[in-house]
């Protein structure tokens, strides 16, 4: 009886333990199957107004990278968490850009930001990001973006002054190899921050040091009413090279149309990727663009044919340019940073950016010299500019030579 009496009790005890284990199991196993946490990022770029096209191109690059990352399983360190994009329209003024950043960063938890194309916008937007302690990646060129001691701003492009120095060396070398001499230069462009910082060292020291005289120095506030007076000055002074910075598309078209109308043959070196977008071919035709060059922070390089093909197939764009390419790289950098930080916390991600040293992968291969590392100011170490040249209706990388997709062509005599 005794033995028989204990058996049911043991059975009940065993059942109770089994039930307790079953109930507790999910809790005990929880750390092993943590819920995936999505990483929310924001892209603050002009999606309306006169620079909307550039914002649209940036968005295309971001969306392509996100589709690739999320399609391949997301961020492993966040248990397969996906990257979620929140876009914000920077509009056509610094005030609108700052307000967009403020709204985007305060509405919900945003871990990282990207933007805002025009240096003048980026200067304002990064102040908001710094105050709210959100790491921010930008392709903008202006030197002062990373001269303010900010801890959360990361500039992946070579700064304007460096671009000016390297572009000048290239153009002199190219002219020399074509038995041409550069004695007179013209500076023609608007007063947006990147152009100002490009022209400043040329005007103050670089051209003088090379014995080159500045014969035309015309700067305007966009929009330009009429370009005739500028072209008239170029025609009467006959410079050997024109450094050209018209970020506003209608302004730029006006200048190029007048160049043709007045029959000017002076080589043109643009400042920025705005000069190598597909709509230029549609508006002014490939003949007018042929041999026009531009210094940019990035452009598809030799070996990136597959990336460009994926981009053109996905978007219907005829070719890939700096804006989608760098934004694509930025999203991949953010992915790698999140893998390193194992967190969506902006501060942890910022600390991870300072430790980042990428030498391979989609981000590293998109930006010269193939390495992603940021110095204490937030500038990408070793960032070098690309020289792009229009040839047959398409812009090709012509410098650096080892990564070029075409050889540079000198514009010809005057």
């Amino acid at each position: 009886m005794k033995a028989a009496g204990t058996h049911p009790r043991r059975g009940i005890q065993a059942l109770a333990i089994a039930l307790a284990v079953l109930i507790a199991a999910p809790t005990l196993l929880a750390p092993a199957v943590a819920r995936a946490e999505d990483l929310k990022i924001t892209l603050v770029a002009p999606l309306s107004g006169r620079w909307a096209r550039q914002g649209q191109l940036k968005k295309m690059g971001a969306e392509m990278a996100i589709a690739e990352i999320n399609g391949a399983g997301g961020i492993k360190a966040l248990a397969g968490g996906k990257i979620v994009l929140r876009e914000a329209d920077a509009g056509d003024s610094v005030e609108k850009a700052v307000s967009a950043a403020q709204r985007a960063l305060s509405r919900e938890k945003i871990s990282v930001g990207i933007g805002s194309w025009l240096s003048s916008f980026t200067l304002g937007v990064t102040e908001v990001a710094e105050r709210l302690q959100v790491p921010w990646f930008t392709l903008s060129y202006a030197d002062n973006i990373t001269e303010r001691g900010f801890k959360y701003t990361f500039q992946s492009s070579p700064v304007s002054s460096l671009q000016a120095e390297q572009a000048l060396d290239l153009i002199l070398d190219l002219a020399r190899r074509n038995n041409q001499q550069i004695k007179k230069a013209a500076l023609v462009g608007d007063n947006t921050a990147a152009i100002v910082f490009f022209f400043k060292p040329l005007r103050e020291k670089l051209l003088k040091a090379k014995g080159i005289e500045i014969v035309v120095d015309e700067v305007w506030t966009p929009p330009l009413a009429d370009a005739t007076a500028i072209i008239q000055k170029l025609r009467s002074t006959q410079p050997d090279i024109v450094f050209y910075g018209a970020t506003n598309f209608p302004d730029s078209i006006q200048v190029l149309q007048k160049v043709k109308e007045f029959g000017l043959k002076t080589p043109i070196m643009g400042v920025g990727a705005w000069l190598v977008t597909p709509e230029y071919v549609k508006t002014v035709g490939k003949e007018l663009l042929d041999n026009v060059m531009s210094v940019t922070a990035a452009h598809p390089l030799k070996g990136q044919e597959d990336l460009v093909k994926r981009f053109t197939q996905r978007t219907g764009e005829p070719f890939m340019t700096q804006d989608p390419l760098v934004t694509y790289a930025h999203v991949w950098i953010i992915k790698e940073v999140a893998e390193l930080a194992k967190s969506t916390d902006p501060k942890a991600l910022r600390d991870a950016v300072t430790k980042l040293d990428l030498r391979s992968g989609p981000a590293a291969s998109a930006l010269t010299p193939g390495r992603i590392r940021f110095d204490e100011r937030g500038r990408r170490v070793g960032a070098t500019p690309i020289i792009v040249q229009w040839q047959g209706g398409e812009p090709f990388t012509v410098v650096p030579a080892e990564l070029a997709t075409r050889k540079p062509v000198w514009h010809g005599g005057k």
Partner: protein
Amino acid sequence: MALGELVQYVVTGLLVGGVYALMSIGLALIFGVMRVVNFAQGDFMMLGMYLTYFLAVGYGVDPLLGALVAIPPFFVLGLVVHRVLLVRVTGGGDPQRLMDAQLILTLGLSLIITNATTMILTPMPRGIRAAYATQAFAVGPVLLNQARSYAFLMALLLAGAVYAFLTRTDLGKALRAAADEPEAAGYQGIDVRAMHGLAFGVGIALVAAAGGLLATYHPIEPTVAVNFIVLMFVAVVLGGLGSIPGAFAGGLLIGLVQSLTLLVLPFQLQNVGVFIAFLLVLYFRPQGLFGQRLRAV
């Protein structure tokens, strides 16, 4: 400075001013007849540019002809906008409240047109590759851009046609009567509301035609209006609010001042010259160049 260079600045200014002038007379007509400040005027110009562009790209219509083709549909569009929207905020009531409602309505219309165009046609800039946009007539050392020269001539013709319509036809005279004294015009059997619709239709058609002419050499994008709307208002006020010849002269003067300013000021201050001229005219002739001084009762 060589004389040839000075002449080039003057000619360039006048050619640019010709299209400003055509843009401005539409605005002046609407204000003159309806007393409505139409902030959406630049957006109708942008739509005129797009229509000319699609006619050129889709059907091979020369943009100069396209600018003329744009007139009838935009006239109808103007009539519809007046009938559906503007009629509610014009034609009697507390003038201050009406003015507020008109400003909000036209500003709202402007925002809707700009953003709807951005959504539908994307912000991508487009351009008509007219061969004459990059060619010039050489008159001695002076070069006259062909597209601007044609646009200038067309602007002159259209402005002349509007002037003839207003001064030589019964309908035009009725329009002026409705503008000058709406109440008395009503007593004479003139349908003032219909005249408002007519003025709005003609005003919109003119600015759309100006947009078509502009499209021969200027890229087209949804936000193109912001580059011109302020200049249009300056031209209208400069010429005398509501005066058609005044708006035309104001437009020409703006183009001329913009160009000649560059002889003494750097490019960055190009529009400073325009606004200095504007302030000077208003200081010495507050009623504008062609406006009539209002008498205090």
